[in-house]
């Protein structure tokens, strides 16, 4: 009898131990995290679910902080310099503005994009009762040639109902968020097109790095990892975090919009996909001082991490840390088809970027 109990005990123990280990060290690459994170809705102002996922996924024992707007961060180490890494959890999309008497939804845009991409396509509406589907009403045939470009004010969502009351019965309310129906489109096993790569790829990099960094060896510096909100509508989350953290060096981790695509002019912002991580030296919000670029390159070189250098357009979260005294050094991957449903990213670039973040925490 005792013998049987012992056997059961050891069998259960042996089954549990690997489980516990797996729980503590998820063997997930940034590529795996990315595929999980992009599918979570997080239109600017509605990032709660993304923050929840990241918070739950962080290594146990971290003292994670979160404010009421869902900015999420942790800080390790002590002393100067204070190095801050920041990625944003929000994405472009819509918020429901009004429910019309005929049961359709008008919307407000969150972030900059071509509303035309949505015309005639299915969308997800995230209500308090769960996700429902709708379609964006297309303009009638014959009218598209002689009318002005499709504007945000043209966007109207059909849910399959014919009155405002029926729409309300579905659980829809003003302020609900709306995204395209997201899909993971693998052009190759290492080449993914999907919505919200900007900036779930940055989120995935920080998450994977948080697991891989040997935090007990971080000495003589303070390191903060931040997942912030509302970047797409004016760097709002970062503006709140900058005075609070008072970083010396800030590394925003976000897309480098590359012209490595057939409809863009390659004389500008051309960095090929698959050639490594990027130092986004100049963009529409920041110029990184050259000595700091040089230092990043040296650290990358020491660890044999492929890094490209370029300038492009668009703002970055680090720029609002600059008035507080920080140096802004944006890190990226080359991405094409920006702010679309098919934002393209190469696995190798994402991995190089993760390695670069780890190396910077270790060697800066």
């Amino acid at each position, binding site marked *: 009898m005792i013998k049987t109990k012992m056997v059961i005990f050891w069998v259960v123990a042996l089954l549990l131990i690997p489980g516990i280990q797996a729980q503590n060290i998820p063997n997930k690459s940034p590529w795996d995290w990315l595929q999980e994170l992009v599918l979570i809705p997080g239109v600017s102002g509605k990032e709660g679910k993304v923050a929840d996922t990241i918070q739950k996924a962080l290594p146990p024992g971290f003292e994670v902080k979160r404010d009421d707007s869902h900015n999420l961060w942790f800080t390790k180490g002590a002393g100067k310099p204070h190095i801050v890494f920041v990625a944003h959890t929000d994405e472009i999309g819509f918020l429901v503005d009004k429910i019309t008497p005929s049961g359709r939804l008008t919307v407000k845009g969150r972030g900059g994009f071509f509303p035309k991409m949505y015309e005639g396509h299915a969308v997800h509406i995230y209500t308090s009762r769960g996700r429902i589907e709708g379609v964006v009403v297309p303009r009638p045939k014959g009218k598209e040639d002689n009318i002005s470009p499709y504007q945000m004010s043209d966007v109207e969502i059909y849910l399959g109902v014919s009155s405002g009351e029926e729409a309300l019965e579905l659980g829809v309310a003003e302020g609900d968020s709306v995204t395209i129906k997201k899909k993971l489109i693998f052009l190759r096993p290492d080449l993914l097109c999907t919505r919200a790569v900007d900036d779930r790829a940055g989120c995935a990099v920080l998450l994977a790095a948080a697991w891989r960094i040997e935090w007990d060896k971080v000495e003589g510096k303070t390191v903060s990892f931040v997942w912030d909100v509302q970047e797409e509508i004016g760097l709002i989350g970062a503006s709140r975090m900058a005075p609070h953290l008072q970083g010396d060096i800030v590394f925003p981790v976000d897309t480098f919009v590359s012209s490595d695509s057939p409809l863009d002019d390659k004389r500008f912002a051309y960095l090929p996909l698959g050639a490594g991580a990027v130092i986004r030296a100049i963009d529409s919000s920041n110029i990184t001082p050259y000595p700091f670029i040089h230092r990043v390159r040296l650290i990358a070189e020491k660890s044999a991490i492929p890094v490209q250098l370029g300038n492009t357009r668009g703002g970055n979260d680090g720029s609002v840390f600059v008035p507080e005294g920080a140096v802004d050094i944006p890190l990226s991957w080359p991405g094409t088809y*920006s702010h679309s449903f098919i934002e393209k990213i190469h696995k190798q670039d994402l991995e190089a970027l993760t390695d670069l973040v780890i190396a910077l925490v270790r060697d800066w």
Partner: protein
Amino acid sequence: MRKKKRKRLFCIPLFVSLLSFSLFGAQDLEALLQSLYAVYAPCGGEENLAGLIEQKVLPKGEWKKDNLGSIYLSLEDGEGYTACLVPMDEVGYIVSGKTTDGYLRLDRIVPADSYNDTFHPGHPMLILTETSSVSAVLALPSLHIFPRSQRDSLEGLFSLENFFLDIGASEEEDIKKRGVRLLDPVLPVHDWSVLAGKKRAGYGLGKRACCAVLVQTACKTVVSTASSDATFVWMAQTCFYHRSSRPRTSIGALRSSRILKNEKILILEAVPVNENADFLSLGGGPILVQGRQSGALATSLQEMAKEGNIPLQHLDFFSSSLTPPFEKDSRDVIVLGIPVKFSGTPAEVIDLGDAEAMAGLLEGFLAKRRQP
């Protein structure tokens, strides 16, 4: 012994599912439609869908095929009375060129207009190669790279002339390695959306719903009687028009009209419902389009609808490219339509209730015809 028992147990669910599909088809119309919708049928390349339809009709009847790809199922006295026809194919593109940096150029398979083109940039597409399929996306300009002042005009790039299909290749050799060849069909990815109630949305869903209705009707007709006199036709190449015919005539329908001898022609088709028209509605039942030559067939269907309390909407005229070849032969031709909202876009909306009503009407009509 045990193995035999396991085998039997395994067979039971399969048998039940086949039986329930055959006998209780109406409940499974959505599942049937979804399974047909999962298959791509570019104009001129309908063989996969045709094969699936042949598999679905249980028990299998005697099938014939014409050299355009249309399939015909004639029951016992099929040539004597009604032929029910439905289009199988969908509007799409073909690979028309390759660039040195690995992108594909496209052309339309059929004379689809620029309206259809504008919906696809920035969305996934599927290339049907000889042996499999290849995922792709249709390129669009990167928003950030253009100054704000130019962004409004970028919509002009959403046109066939600016179509570049991205399969993740970086040179022509890569394209070859992926098995993509010139003239391979390219279609928008089918995306099944569930709207409120019985509304469903997807690219080309109206036509495919008609296909499903005819499959279900054929199943029931074959199963429920030993003798029937109907012919069922799933037509290929209906999006392509015969060059010298006026009015505009589908080549697939023209070929079928030469093959079929039936006096009565019932065509199932997707009928667009105008946003502002208040006389036709989604969910209001199938639409009976009475052409100039509609006679006894229309009357029978109307009576059947009345008897069966099946909702039926009426339309005096609908410009169909499927009816002209039959009308020329002075046959009794009608169109029974499924109302479709946002026709010709990736968000075509149908009401499954209309499809079910159409199936009920058709089954009732064919059953009544069989009564002595």
